[in-house]
């Protein structure tokens, strides 16, 4: 690997990590604003114009607060848990394309520049899911190490929840994978761009509507957000797994959760909303202007998805634990299997046609 390639990768890493950490700060502001609007309030507006400096104030608060480590905790695990949360949430981005990558990438002197930190990983989706399920260790370890009944209950609920919802999550994606015949995320994207009937694009949400619903529900459960935030459940568990955490350790859990939301939004957009696919942008257009536009389109879609996730939060109440399990095992998994079988049969029947 040439030096310039390493330099490009480093630039991409700094860019993406910096961008997303900054985005998280503003997502918290957005979340607070949407929460306020949903309750007919105004939301933070004192810190800078329209409250735009609020994330800085929040960040300073997190950093400057006293970092309490209770005396009875399992110290190594207690410190490890928030680190796992943030590391797992960050490295998941490695294979997520945020613009044209692979064969569609724009070129400099004939060398393609991929808008993806680790391009051409054949098992991109598997990697993202593997990292995503590792993130559950943060919650379980945090809950266990806190040596607190509430935290422990939160951790337990979370482990059962993630294990259950991983199955429909994986199964729902398989339909799109079979259609695109690749586990690589940008192949799935370009498949959606290349196919389609006239003006209607072959976005995952149109060709696999059931899978989209199952994926969406499972993704909500994976990110631990309402209506599936049983692990935190302020009203029942005083904050759940992060009851005993303060200052920046709590902030790291927070950061991890929001990074997870970004990852899930990216996955949803890439798998089911065509990624950077827009009506006027073709996959064969590899100029730099098109590349920048494609990056803009995918970030626009991701922003809409993030807003939708926050919107859902203020719409649905939290599930009870048994309802959560019923939904996963009695509804989502059978439906995901059905969707998989139907997709397989259809692909086999129309193999020669399409």
């Amino acid at each position, binding site marked *: 690997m040439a030096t310039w390639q390493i330099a490009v990768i480093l630039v991409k890493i700094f860019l993406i990590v910096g961008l997303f950490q900054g985005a998280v700060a503003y997502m918290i502001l957005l979340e607070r604003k949407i929460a306020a*609007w*949903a309750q007919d309030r105004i939301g933070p507006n004192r810190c800078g114009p329209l409250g735009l400096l609020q994330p800085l104030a929040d960040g300073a608060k997190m950093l400057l607060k006293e970092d309490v480590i209770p005396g009875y905790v399992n110290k190594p695990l207690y410190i490890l848990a928030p680190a796992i949360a943030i590391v797992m949430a960050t490295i998941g981005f490695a294979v997520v394309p945020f613009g044209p990558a692979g064969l569609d990438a724009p070129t400099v002197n004939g060398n393609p520049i991929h808008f993806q930190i680790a391009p051409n990983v054949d098992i991109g989706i598997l990697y993202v899911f593997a990292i995503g399920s590792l993130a559950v260790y943060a919650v379980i370890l945090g809950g266990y190490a806190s040596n607190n009944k509430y935290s422990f209950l939160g951790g337990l609920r979370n482990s059962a929840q993630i294990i259950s919802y991983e199955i429909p999550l994986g199964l729902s994606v398989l339909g799109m994978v079979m259609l695109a015949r690749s586990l690589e995320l940008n192949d799935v994207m370009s498949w959606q761009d290349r196919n389609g009937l006239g003006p209607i694009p072959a976005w995952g949400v149109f060709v696999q509507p059931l899978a989209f619903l199952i994926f969406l529900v499972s993704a909500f459960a994976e990110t631990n957000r309402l209506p599936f935030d049983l692990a935190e459940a302020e009203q029942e568990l005083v904050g759940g797994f992060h009851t005993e955490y303060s200052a920046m350790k709590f902030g790291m859990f927070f950061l991890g959760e929001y990074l997870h939301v970004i990852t899930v939004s990216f996955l949803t957009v890439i798998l089911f909303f065509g990624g950077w696919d827009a009506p006027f942008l073709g996959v064969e257009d590899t100029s730099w202007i098109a590349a920048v536009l494609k990056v803009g389109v995918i970030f626009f879609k991701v922003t809409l998805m993030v807003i939708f996730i926050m919107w859902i939060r203020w*719409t649905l109440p939290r599930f009870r634990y048994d309802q959560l399990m019923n939904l996963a095992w009695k509804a989502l998994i059978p439906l995901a299997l059905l969707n998989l079988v139907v997709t397989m049969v259809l692909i086999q029947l129309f193999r020669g046609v399409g």
Partner: protein
Amino acid sequence: MKPDDPNLKRVEPPKLTLLEKTYLPQILGGLAVTGRHILGSAIGGKAVTVQYPEEQHVPTANYRGVHRLNKDEQGRVKCVACMLCATACPAHCIDIVGATAPEDWPDREKYPESFVIDELRCIYCGMCEEACPVDAIELTGLYDITGLSREELIYDKAKLLSVFDMTKDAEPMKTGNPPASLPVPTSPLDPEGPGPRTTVPAAQLPSRS
């Protein structure tokens, strides 16, 4: 009522259609409701927030805020030191020291020499206002009382009378308003204005029993 009572109506849960069993229409309905609220407050300006320090909230006419001691036409305190308010007060926050009225006050036998209300102890129930036979004590719409010490919020007679001067135009007395020539302080926390800026002597504090 027995289980076989003919008046007993059995209510069955409604049969859900397949679409309703997915809960999707209901979720979409819920999204529409929250979406209306989000858009209404974000764009439509329907948020109910009052930007407090810049924008003062005006309470309703029957709001129970800081007390005031009403004055009569001659600018004298209306109170006749009958102690009914102090007796009615469930929080025991009113402390009155009555004295024989001056010779030239022929309409009453007694007047309050000292009239102290502990605004921190008060629960703003309005019983004093109801108990008063001469409508001398009333609760105003002032709600933003602040102080740097507990003593500062123990209001004496002068302070309570100044509250009256301040609020008498906005909130006229329920009976018999005095002429408008009486002096009007501008703010309840005006350091130059009347009221217990200095620490109240211990003897003047209301009893805590």
